[in-house]
């Protein structure tokens, strides 16, 4: 089955959308679009039963077979899980957007074209087995995200956020490409599966760690890990359906996907384990801590997403430890990957629903500012219920799915200290502590999000709109997600068997062959173990801190503003605009004399240093004629003339001196038996001096620029340098005639074959007649230029008028 083409269905559909939008104005374009993810979702579900048994499928088409570049769709547990997420959440988001985006006021065709493009891109990312096509789709997600964030392109913040997200994610993408290329050189293939097969050999290669770090840069930028997360909060300028879809459920998980997919290749490296686990945990803490600083509902959710992505990332890192411990040892690390994937699914459900609720609140009240909101519970009871479910799940409370995966996460972090390789046994204790603190903050911001919005005092005068419950259509999608949150808690093992286990096999092929090998059973109740106590601690401390939030929240403003990462980005962008401009203006003076100084300096330095490094200097007097007295005199005249040109106060003197220089060169030609050259030189000198004198009348007064001594010394130095260089190389070249010249051939053939007497003439018109033809052409072109220069003088004003005439 050529399911590789499924990937392109959304893109093809995108071609039709603008026409549908124009022709069928009565129906919201979203209804047509909705068909695409729904159909794809059902197509992908047909794979479920087989993939569940550990089967995998490939389908590909060749793009550039000569360079082994193809688009290969590889469906195994991991890519199928993501494909279902993309199309499933995609369907719900499109449905939601139909009610969210007004069909008369919005440029719907643009919106849906971008969204469908994104869908193709994202499916491509998760299904590509070929690294180049993975990179292609990866960049396409960045581009479609750019377009979606900038959807309201008149807003400054939208444009800013769009550019920021693109710069950071494309940077990561490019680095990732570098890593891919390195991997492909090491493993001699672009196929990820083949690389996995040869993973043990790759580990010894000198570029292994390079490629690892480069690829992680791609994953970390895309999945908004510290310190690259800064684009995600600004991406919230996108319409809310986009935030729910790209910036929470799917695109930001591409980095997680990448880490999961490459785990079998890189798990052997301690760099991988440290970086993925460490950065993940840092991001988890950082995101949850700063979520409480936010006052925008979507801002809170953005930071929460950052934090949750970090959580999953750290689990994937811990999962890689199992590569070293092996399956026999009854370690928890083999569960970490399971927990990661399970939480990834759970996060998609509860965070998706929360984003949609944030959108509903925005839509129905006109603001997302949590300081203006409050007491919406009575007006929006359904939204409140969904928000409550989502938030409690996020906080890790039963009976919601977040509780289950959170417990597994704590188990994973606790066990890291038992790992006795790579110095984890000393530093490992930090992991559960950070995880616990971050969980406390997660608890607080979950409560902050839901209760500050829906309970407390209603402030109708602060709201731009009269608050009321959303239309039923808008509630369908979050309600579906909300019910999944609850359902998964009660039947976790269905999800575990069908979705999670096949994915885990893909991440840990060194442990399992088929999903049945994984003996993990999710239970809500483990008895009173340490994880449970930790959870109770989180709830108690979290509640206490939430209750006193207003007391300590202002502390966030005490953080120095100058050292934030956002400031760093802004500074870099400022440098790239204004800084480069200042720098450029410093050396691009607009004066040709400065440029000539730079250029001549470069020429002199490079040439002279080459002469010295290569010991190319050589001078031999063997073939030289003796210098005669009158030659010396002419040379002196030449030098005197040159100096006069430079030093003369009046232009007339300079011109005459220039003539003297030219005539002395002509004299040299006479002495050295080159009458043709001498004649030519004399004619040229005469004409050019005459012309100069003609033009002389029109020239402005001689005005030597920059008479400062330093400037003139510098110029003199450069000028002397050029002269010396040319002389040195000329002497050396003349002294090293290493190969006999071809000119003897001309001497032999000039009479017999060319039928001419004067060898120079014959060279000009016969041997090298082609040169002469075009030299003459040069003169003709020059004359055209002169005619045009004299006769055609356009002014700017005339120019403009003329264009308008057309």
């Amino acid at each position, binding site marked *: 089955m050529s399911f590789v083409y499924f990937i392109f269905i959304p893109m093809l559909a995108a071609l039709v959308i603008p026409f549908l939008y124009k022709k069928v104005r009565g129906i919201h374009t979203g209804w047509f679009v909705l068909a695409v993810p729904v159909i794809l979702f059902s197509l992908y579900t047909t794979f479920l039963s087989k993939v569940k048994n550990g089967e995998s499928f490939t389908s590909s088409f060749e793009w550039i077979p000569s360079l082994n570049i193809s688009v290969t769709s590889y469906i195994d547990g991991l890519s199928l899980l993501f494909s279902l997420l993309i199309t499933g959440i995609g369907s719900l988001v499109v449905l939601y957007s139909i009610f969210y985006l007004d069909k008369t006021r919005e440029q719907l065709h643009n919106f849906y074209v971008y969204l469908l493009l994104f869908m193709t891109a994202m499916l491509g990312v998760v299904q590509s087995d070929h690294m180049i096509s993975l990179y*292609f789709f990866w960049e396409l997600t960045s581009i479609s995200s750019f377009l979606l964030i900038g959807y309201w392109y008149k807003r400054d913040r939208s444009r800013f956020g769009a550019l920021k997200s693109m710069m950071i994610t494309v940077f990561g993408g490019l680095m990732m490409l570098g890593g891919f290329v390195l991997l492909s050189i090491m493993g001699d293939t672009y196929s990820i599966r083949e690389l996995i097969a040869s993973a043990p050999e790759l580990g010894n290669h000198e570029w292994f760690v390079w490629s690892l770090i480069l690829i992680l840069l791609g994953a970390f930028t895309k999945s908004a890990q510290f310190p690259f997360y800064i684009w995600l909060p600004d991406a919230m300028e996108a319409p809310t359906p986009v935030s729910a879809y790209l910036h929470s459920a799917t695109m930001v998980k591409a980095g997680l996907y990448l880490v999961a997919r490459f785990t079998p290749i890189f798990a052997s490296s301690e760099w991988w384990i440290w970086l993925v686990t460490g950065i993940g945990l840092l991001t988890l803490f950082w995101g949850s801590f700063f979520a409480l600083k936010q006052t925008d509902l979507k801002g809170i959710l953005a930071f929460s997403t950052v934090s949750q992505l970090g959580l999953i990332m750290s689990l994937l890192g811990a999962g890689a430890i199992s590569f070293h411990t092996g399956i026999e040892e009854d370690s928890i690390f083999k569960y970490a990957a399971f927990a990661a994937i399970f939480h990834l699914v759970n996060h998609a459900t509860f965070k998706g629903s929360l984003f949609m609720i944030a959108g509903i609140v925005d839509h129905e009240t006109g603001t997302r500012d949590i300081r203006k909101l409050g007491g919406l519970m009575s007006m929006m009871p359904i939204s409140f219920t969904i928000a409550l479910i989502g938030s409690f799940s996020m906080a890790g409370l039963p009976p919601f799915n977040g509780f289950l995966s959170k417990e597994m996460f704590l188990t994973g972090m606790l066990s890291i200290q038992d790992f006795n390789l790579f110095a984890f046994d000393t530093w490992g204790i930090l992991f559960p502590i950070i995880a616990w603190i971050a969980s406390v903050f997660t608890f607080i911001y979950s409560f902050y999000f839901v209760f500050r919005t829906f309970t407390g005092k209603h402030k109708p005068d602060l709201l731009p709109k009269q608050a009321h419950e959303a239309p039923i259509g808008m509630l369908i999608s979050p309600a579906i997600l909300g019910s999944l949150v609850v359902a998964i808690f009660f039947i976790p093992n269905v999800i575990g068997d069908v979705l999670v286990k096949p994915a885990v096999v893909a991440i840990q092929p060194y442990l399992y062959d088929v999903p049945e090998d994984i003996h993990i059973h999710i239970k809500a109740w483990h008895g009173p173990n340490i994880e449970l106590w930790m959870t109770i601690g989180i709830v108690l401390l979290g509640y206490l801190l939430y209750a006193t939030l207003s007391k300590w929240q202002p502390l966030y403003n005490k953080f120095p503003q100058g050292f934030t990462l956002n400031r760093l980005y802004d500074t870099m962008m400022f440098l790239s605009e204004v800084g480069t401009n200042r720098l450029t203006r410093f050396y691009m003076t607009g004066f040709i004399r400065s440029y000539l100084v*730079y250029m001549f300096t470069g020429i002199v330095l490079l040439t002279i240093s080459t002469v010295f490094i290569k010991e190319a200097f050589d001078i031999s007097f063997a073939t030289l004629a003796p210098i005669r007295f009158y030659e010396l005199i002419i040379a002196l005249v030449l030098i005197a003339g040159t100096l006069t040109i430079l030093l003369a106060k009046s232009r007339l003197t300079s011109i005459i001196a220039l003539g003297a220089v030219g005539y002395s060169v002509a004299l040299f030609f006479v002495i050295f038996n080159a009458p043709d050259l001498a004649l030519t030189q004399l004619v040229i000198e005469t004409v050019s001096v005459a012309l100069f004198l003609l033009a002389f009348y029109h020239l402005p007064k001689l005005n030597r620029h920059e008479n400062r001594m330093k400037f003139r010394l510098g110029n003199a130095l450069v000028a002397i340098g050029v002269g010396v260089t040319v002389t040195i190389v000329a002497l050396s070249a003349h002294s090293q005639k290493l*190969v006999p010249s071809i000119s003897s051939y001309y001497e032999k053939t000039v009479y017999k074959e060319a039928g001419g007497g004067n060898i120079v003439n014959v060279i000009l018109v016969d041997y090298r007649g082609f040169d002469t033809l075009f030299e003459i052409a040069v003169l003709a072109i020059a004359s055209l230029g002169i005619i045009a220069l004299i006769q055609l003088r356009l002014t700017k004003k005339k120019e403009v008028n003329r264009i308008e005439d057309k």
Partner: protein
Amino acid sequence: MINLLLFPILLPFFFAMILMLFPKKILAQRTVASTALVLTFGVTLVLLYKVKTNGIQAITLGSWPAPFGISMVSDMLSVLLVLSSTLIALLVVWYSFSSIGKDRESFFYYPGILFMLTGVNGAFTTGDIFNMFVFFEVLLMSSYLLIVLGGEKGQLRESIKYILVNVISSALFVVTVAYLYSVIGTLNMADISVKIAQIDQPGIITVIAVLFLLVFGLKGAIFPLYFWLPSSYAAPPIPVLALFGALLTKVGVYAIMRTYTLFFTLDQGFTHEMLMILSILTIIAGCIGALAYFDVKKIIIYNIIIAVGVILFGASQMNEAALMGSVFYLIHDILIKGALFLLIGVIIAITGTSDLRKMGGLIKTYPMLGWTYLIAAFGLAGIPPLSGFIGKLLIVQGGFEAGNLWGSILILLSSLAVLLSVIRIFIYAFWGETVEIKPLTRQHYRGLFMPAVILVAISVLYGVGSEWLVPYMSDAASVLLEPALYIKAVLGGA
């Protein structure tokens, strides 16, 4: 027909001379110029086919044996360059109909373009180092004609700089050829290769190699010789800028690639290392410049410099992947630079300014223009599957294979700077609040937009259809890797 390879040079030359006879008949000028270019393009296609099937075409003029006469050589690299240059000239001429204005059209504008193409095609085809100088003179003199044509104040101010620098570089060129001739006594490039191999490239040849790098680097605008380029190129009207930007620096780049693969190959540890360092510095300098301005012309002009660095970085690696990538990227850059200059020409015509800060919201009134520009911008930045990608990928791969990790990573990072510089144009000109503009008439807009769209479409095909190009590119790279092929085609025999 053994002299087929001369036609891409002689046809424009011949028609240019004819055009000189009736400068004021604008309609005839346009018709004859386009006919000349279509014919040239057709002949070059035939030549391409011939080179592909029969291998390198070479002829030594006047029936003198090589190396005593002037040899003209058309290998895959040169014929591809000739083909894309002719294509650019054709589309620029079409674009000129609606933009250059009747005054310029009646003052040898079209002959100027044809003469320039003569020089460009000649420089790409010649197998003789002095003859290359002659063709450089032809293209430079025509470019002087084109840059001063119109005589606007800014034009004249910048032309004098342009002419001054190029006269100096021509002088340096002749001097360097003289040095080379003094040492090895021949001018035929294939013969030079043979003779240099005989004497095992002593120090003096390496010095001359560096001088050639500087001579061609002046044309190709590498660091530290690019300074003259940005303001000079910004002076002439858009079609001339497009021609210059797409073609002229490429002649310098081609000449470096040719000389550094054909004959200066025996001291790569020095010469090619220097080439690599200079190309990296070129990229950095180009990136700084591309980000520094809000003038759309300047932004794209600095991107020329970046591309020159990228191509030469590839050329300096001397392995198959990188050289093939360089050829891929060279042709891509001719197409995409032509397209981008024409597109910003449309933007300037619509908004009446080249200052980004005075533009905005064009996407509402000119959506097609916006999307076309965006595609071209992504193509330039090397986003797959557009045209810049494969070349850059291969160059990076070649760089890694040659062990130059940092250089290759820098190439990747330069893509980011390129992207930022061109996306800035999109964000400022097409997004944001709409700025009041006087819309162009439909006919005028089409005349400007169509050539640009066609060029963008070709560049997209170039990227997506890379598969069909690979055989050509690999032929081109194989000649660069194996000078023996070239030498055999010119000198014959062993």
